[in-house]
C-alpha cells in the first residue's frame, strides 16, 4: 500500500510547501516582484510544521506524513527538497532560530519585515523590551501572555555577546560594471 500512497502524499506535501511559501510571501509579493526577485525560497519544514495559518489538524497530518520523508532525507546525501526542485533557487529568506517562541515571533514580526532585521540585532533585555513594545504599538500581534517569553527568546538569541551576523551579498551583476 505504501508504494501507492507515497507519490500521492509526496504531491500533497509539495503542494503544501508551495502554498505555505506563497502565503509567506504574499504580503511582500509586489515588492519582491517589482524589485525583480524570484519569489521562491526552498520550502521549509519548519514553516510547514509551525506556521500559524495551518490548522492543528493539518499540522499533525503533515508532521506524520512528512516524517518518513524527513528520515529518508537525513540519510541521503542531499535533502529531498533540493532534488524535488531543480535547479534550486537561491535561498532569499532566512528563519528565526528554533525555540518555543519561533513560530509566534515569526508570525508577529514577518507581517512587516523579514527575519534578517532581527538576526542582525545584538541587544540586551532592556533594549529588546523597548523594541517589542514599540513594534506591538506599530501593529505586531503579540498576545500579552506571550510578551515576556518573546522578549526572553529575542534577548537570549540576539544578545550583545553573540558573534556578529554575517550578511549575504547580492550576486555580481555585469550591468553593474558598466552602468553609470
Amino acid at each position, binding site marked *: 500500500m505504501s508504494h501507492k500512497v507515497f507519490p500521492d502524499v509526496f504531491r500533497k506535501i509539495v503542494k503544501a510547501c508551495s502554498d505555505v511559501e506563497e502565503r509567506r510571501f504574499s*504580503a511582500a509579493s*509586489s*515588492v*519582491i516582484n*517589482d*524589485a525583480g*526577485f*524570484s519569489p521562491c525560497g526552498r520550502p*521549509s*519544514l*519548519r514553516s*510547514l*510544521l509551525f506556521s500559524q495559518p495551518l490548522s492543528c489538524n493539518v499540522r*499533525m497530518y503533515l*508532521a*506524520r506524513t*512528512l*516524517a*518518513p520523508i*524527513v*528520515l529518508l*532525507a537525513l540519510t541521503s546525501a542531499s535533502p529531498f527538497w533540493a532534488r524535488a526542485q531543480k535547479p534550486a533557487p*537561491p*535561498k*532569499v529568506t*532566512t*528563519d*528565526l*532560530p*528554533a525555540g518555543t517562541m*519561533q513560530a509566534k515571533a515569526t508570525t508577529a514580526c514577518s*507581517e*512587516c*519585515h*523579514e527575519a*534578517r*532585521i532581527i538576526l*542582525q*540585532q*545584538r541587544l*540586551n533585555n532592556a*533594549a529588546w523590551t*523597548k523594541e517589542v513594545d514599540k513594534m506591538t504599538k*506599530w*501593529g*505586531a500581534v503579540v498576545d500579552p501572555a506571550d510578551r515576556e517569553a518573546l522578549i526572553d527568546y529575542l534577548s537570549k538569541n540576539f544578545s550583545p555577546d553573540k558573534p*556578529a551576523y*554575517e*550578511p*549575504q*551579498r*547580492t*550576486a*555580481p*551583476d555585469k*550591468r*553593474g*560594471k558598466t*552602468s*553609470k
Partner: protein
Amino acid sequence: MNSRRNFLKQISVAAIAAGATPSILTWALPQQQSVAVPGEDGMVLRSYRFFDLESPVEYFNTWLTPVPHFFVRNHMHEPSELDPAAWRLSLGGEVEKPVSLTLGELSKLETHSVVNTLECAGNGRSLHRPQVPGVQWGKGAVGTARFSGPRLRDLLQRAGVKSTGKHVMFRGLDEVPGKVPPFIRSIPIEKALDADTLVAIHMNGSPLTRHHGFPARALVPGWIGAASCKWITEIKVLDKEFVGNFMSPAYRFPNQPGKPGDSVKPEDTHPVTALSVKSVISGPSEGARLKSGRVAVHGAAWAGGADIAKVEISTDGGTTWSPATLGHAQAHYAWRLWTYDWKPGKSGDYTIMSRATDSQGHTQPPTAVWNPSGYLYNAIDQVNIHVA
C-alpha cells in the same frame, strides 16, 4: 496497528526535530550564498524586506558611485505601482496657489545638478558600543552621485510661499505596513529655498531607478539621507516642523554627549540634519595580507556642507600622522577621494588609521558620540593588516 501508531508518534517527534534542523544550520553557518538582484552588483544585503543594501567599502574608489553600487535605504515597502503617466507632484499648504505637475511638466523645468555625498544617518551604527537597535550598517551606507532636476525653490516660488511657511514636508508613495507611522519628514524653509536643494529626477545622468525613488525624490544636499525622501508625490508647506515619528523621536541627537547606554529625554535632543566630518579607508581591506613593498592606502572623506581640509594617515596606531593626497575631483557637497603611498619598514601586523578634518576645523574623533539610535558614527577609521 498500535505499534504502527507508536512508530508514527515517534517518527513525528523525529520529524519535528528534523524540521528545526535547517533553521539551526541556517543560524549557525555564515550565509554567504549570494542573492540575485538585477541592477545591484555585489552589495551587502542588510535586509530584503524592507530592502536595504550597503556598499562594500572597497567600492569607494570612484568619485561618482555607479548606481548598482549605491546603497539603498528603505523604511517601508517600495511602491508596488509606479505609473509615470498617472504620477503627479502636488505642492500645497501655506502657499498662494497650489500647484500640480505631471512628470512631463516637471522634466521641462530648468534643471540643476548637484554632486552630493548621500549618507544614511545610521551609517556605522553597528560600530557603536553598547550596540543600538536598527539596521546594523557597517561603513558603507554612503555614496556620491550627480543628482539633477528642478530646484525646489523654483517650485515653491511658482506656488508662492506665504509668510507663515516655515517647513516643507515631503510625502512619498512608500507603502506602510501595519500601524507603522508613515515615513513623512520636513525640512526648514531656509534649506528648502537653498539653490542646491532639488526635486531630483536623474541620478548620474539617468532617470532615477525604483530603489532610488523613481520618478522623483527630494535631494537635500549635505544632510542625512533621510531628508531626501523618495517617490515623492506631495510637497506641503507647513507653519511648523512636521509632527510624526520620523521627525521625533526618530532622527534626533542628544544636545550633550551622555554616558553610553543612558537614555536621553526627548527635550534634550535636536534634529539630525548635516552630516559629520568623516573618512573611511577603502583599501587595503580589513585583514589583508600584503607583500612587502609599497602599499597604496586609499579612501574617501566628506563633511556634509563643509569642505575637507585634510586627511591624515597613521600606520603606528595613532602615534604619528602623515597627510594623504586629496583627489582633484571635488564639489561643495561631495566627498574627496584620497590616497597615501606607504612603505612599511618591516614585516608584521599594522593598524592603518585615517582622520579627516573639515574647513570648519572639525576633526574625526577617536570615539564617536554614542546616542540611543546610533546616528552620525564618525570615529577615526581603521583597518588591521599584515605585511609579509
